[in-house]
């Protein structure tokens, strides 16, 4: 029921590894960690959801917020590694149309 956020900065790509659940409780933790990253210009930010087993509209809202912020700065946001359940939420809500949600390697079960 918790969320761990692990940030790895490479040259001009920042990968944010999330581990746990993104909900109304953990979203504030996530926002705090992502907001400073969104400040930079011409950045490439990848959020890795491989270890996220739960996300709901609060979590999706955080990503919309980040998308708006990075868009202003000419930066780029990409969602990667989402499992089929999590990915499905991006699809249902139409978020995958405005956001770069990476195709998943794993097969649908």
């Amino acid at each position, binding site marked *: 029921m918790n969320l761990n956020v692990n940030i790895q900065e490479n040259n001009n790509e920042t990968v944010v590894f999330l581990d746990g659940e993104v*909900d*109304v409780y953990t979203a504030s933790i996530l926002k705090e960690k992502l907001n400073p990253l969104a400040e930079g210009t011409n950045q490439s930010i990848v959020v890795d959801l491989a270890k996220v087993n739960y996300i709901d509209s*609060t979590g999706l809202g955080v990503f919309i917020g980040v*998308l708006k912020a990075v*868009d202003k700065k000419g930066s780029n946001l990409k969602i990667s590694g989402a499992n089929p359940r999590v990915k499905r939420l991006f699809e249902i809500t*139409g978020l995958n149309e405005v956001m770069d949600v990476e195709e998943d390697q794993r097969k649908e079960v």
Partner: protein
Amino acid sequence: MAQTSDLIDLKMPAKPEYVGVVRLTISGIANRIGYSYDDIEDIKIAVAEACTNVVSHAYDETVQDPVMTITCGVFEDKLEITVADHGGDIDVNSFKKGKGPVKMDRPIEELKEGGLGLFLIETLMDKVEIYGDSGVMIVMTKFLQRGEVGQNDNGISTQHPKQ
């Protein structure tokens, strides 16, 4: 489980840290009844969205002990979950404005960060009713398909064999 109707009642502080506890309880109940993994996930999200709304919108800061109540009716063929608050009289018709998926024909800067909760609830559950009186009460139903296919007309729930 052969009984036609069991009732489970849960009362919690309307605080962010308890929404996950509600999810656990609900997933335990749905698991017991025999819902598929995917259906359990749908139910968890819908209930969490309703609770999140109570936590975020129902009470103003002056309320001393904001509470959310979750009632779960277990029937032969369905689960009926009610999430309610005592946030006071409210016009639930206003909720419907702007509900729906993200609109991709708009520029990114106009995207809204909220407004997806009720849309998800209605998408993931089979039947949803919202009442406002002394607070908001949202009644969500998910039907149980014992090994059958169909019955789900929103075209979203995948049809897996039930364990």
